[in-house]
């Protein structure tokens, strides 16, 4: 691995609008003001005792207003680190290169004080484990009120309380005027996640980052929480960046997908393109490994699996990080020697694979 290849020069902040536009998909509704959030060549690395961990490596994507973008990948693929980088919440030991442009403002260039004004107000985050992310000594209402008061100190107590109740009602908490005074431990798992969402939307943010919002919940509650997110989006026209490893969740609510593997972006496209016509073997493998009702199966058939182990971020395989597990890879050859760049395979559909035309046999293969 050559460490300096992916450290872009600092002038990435000056990326021309033309470059941004080229990544804009035809399928997305563009208000003409360009994307709401534009992540350009973002890399995050951590120096550890075992070596340099490249948690995120040259990731580039856009999020438009009122759009839902899914970031998909397995544990350690860099999904959460990307979202923390956007909010500027990574520890100081993290080395960040590339640019994050939000409403024309470069976020990494902002001071901590300026970032505080954006966090929670413009960009809000929904955490995975709502019980851990809620303060145990405050009632839920107090916490929502606090989230509002952080950005607007002039609101009086009564208004804060009413607004908290309204928000709880909006996210579908039954009996909100009573529940508002209860503590997180008195809530059920699904209600806690709703309360988290209520907190996140309390300041009408333009972008919601939901980091695995449904992972800790059971399936029926998952559906309810996703429904709440969709309803919120209809009302507030917020963009949502949905980070998940659950392809089912993605298929249901997302418009565009970013697939990540080993800290790198391997595929980017609309949810239909990506799911019905994957152009990267990793995406294809993920999809093929899902149990499906419409595919015949009996006790002799097994689910597809991606052979091998997820890579170590310290010792990523050479060339394409996926090549040791890839059924189509030419090894030794291009796949193990050169790193594939994200290239357009169809309008608005990009894949970081040298042989995108080979991909597809797994999905179509009769079981």
């Amino acid at each position, binding site marked *: 691995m050559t460490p300096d290849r992916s450290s872009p020069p600092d002038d990435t902040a000056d990326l021309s609008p033309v470059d941004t536009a080229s990544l804009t998909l035809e399928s997305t509704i563009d208000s003409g003001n360009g994307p709401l959030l534009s992540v350009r060549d973002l890399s995050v690395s951590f120096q550890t005792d075992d070596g340099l961990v490249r948690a995120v490596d040259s990731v580039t994507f856009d999020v438009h207003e009122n759009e839902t973008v899914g970031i998909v990948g397995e544990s350690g693929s860099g999904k959460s680190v990307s979202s923390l980088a956007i909010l500027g919440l990574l520890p100081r030991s993290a080395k960040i290169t590339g640019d994050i442009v939000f409403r024309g403002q470069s976020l990494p260039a902002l001071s901590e004080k300026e970032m*505080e004004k954006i966090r*929670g107000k413009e960009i809000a985050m929904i955490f995975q484990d709502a019980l*851990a992310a809620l303060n145990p000594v405050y009632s839920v209402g107090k916490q929502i009120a606090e989230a509002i008061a952080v950005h607007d100190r002039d609101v009086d107590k009564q208004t804060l309380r009413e607004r908290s109740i309204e928000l709880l009602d909006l996210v579908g908490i039954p*009996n909100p005027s009573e529940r508002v005074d209860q503590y997180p*431990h008195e809530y059920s798992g699904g209600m806690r996640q709703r309360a988290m969402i209520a907190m996140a939307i309390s300041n009408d943010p333009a972008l919601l980052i939901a980091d695995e919002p449904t992972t800790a919940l059971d399936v029926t509650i998952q559906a309810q929480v996703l429904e709440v997110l969709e309803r919120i989006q209809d009302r507030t026209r917020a963009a949502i960046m949905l980070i998940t490893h659950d392809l089912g969740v993605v298929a249901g609510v997302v418009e565009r997908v970013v697939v990540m593997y080993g800290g790198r972006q391997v595929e980017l496209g609309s949810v239909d393109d990506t799911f019905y016509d994957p152009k990267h073997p990793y995406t294809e493998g993920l999809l093929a490994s899902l149990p499906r009702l419409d595919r015949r199966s009996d006790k002799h058939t097994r689910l597809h699996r991606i052979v091998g182990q997820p890579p170590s971020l310290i010792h990523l395989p050479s060339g394409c990080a996926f090549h040791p597990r890839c059924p189509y890879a030419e090894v030794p050859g291009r796949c193990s020697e050169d790193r594939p760049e994200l290239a357009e395979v169809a309008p608005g559909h990009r894949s970081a694979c040298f042989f995108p035309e080979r991909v597809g046999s797994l999905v179509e293969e009769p079981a």
Partner: protein
Amino acid sequence: MTDERTSTGSRPLMPVGVGPALPVAPGDGEFEIASHAEPVARSQWQLFWRRFVRHRIAIASIVVLLILVLLCFGASFFAPFPNNQQDLLLGPVSPNGTHWLGTDELGRDQLTRLLYAGQISLKIGFAVAFISTVVGTAIGALAGFFGKATDQALMRATDLFLVLPAIAILALALEFFGHTDTVIIIVLAGLFWMSVARVVRGQVLSLKEKEFVEAARASGASPLRIIVRHIIPNIIGPIMLNVTLGVAAAIITESTLSFLGFGVQPPQTSWGNMLSDAEGYVGTSQSYLLYAPGLLILLTVLAVNFIGDGLSDAFDPQSEKH
């Protein structure tokens, strides 16, 4: 449930439909229903109070302490004799109808002296506990939250204070600035904040890794706001416990100092002072002079400790589960 209701009187604690929400008289009926149809909003203080009153001993301790404070600070009203009034001809007498707790060798009424001395002892106890807790909490929280150089600097300063020989410093400071209660309070507070700082730092270290702190940061709260609004409320229990321990320790230290002759100087008196005055009477017919101040110190320290117990339980919202 019944237990809860009796313990807090008639206030309806249950939400709609469960509580005693029935209209009493037809005339008031409408109003009654309307007032109960609103779910009962329990403020944090109401909840806190409800948990606190479960500690009977803590409640009793508060009553005892309040009575003590009232008697001591209302001494000019309650004391049977003027402060420091001597009756040299009378000399020391055992407890009797006029002098309930007897008199000392100068003929001063023991009960009167106890009440006035209590002013000094209680003032020193509470002031030292309060100041040292505020200082210690601030230093510990800053050190724990910001870590790195801040932590190093503040904690090494704390260590430095810990190795200071307390009695020697006290003796010096008192010689230098005078034996007044204010000087004693400041010096004792300056020697008492370190343990609080260490406890708070440790708690903050573990709390700042919690996801709700990250969530607070993600909602745009500044570091100071996170410390004050999100972290401190989570450790209010240990902090309150430290306050109460501090009150007890300060009263005892002041007694020790007075006993050694470094405390407040006559005509000011504290309970410790009275103890040291009475020291010479152990085993004589005037040994009664020893018991009252000793008992009051014991009573105060115990009461404050029990209150601390009750407080630290009451501040934990999860103790609602039983």
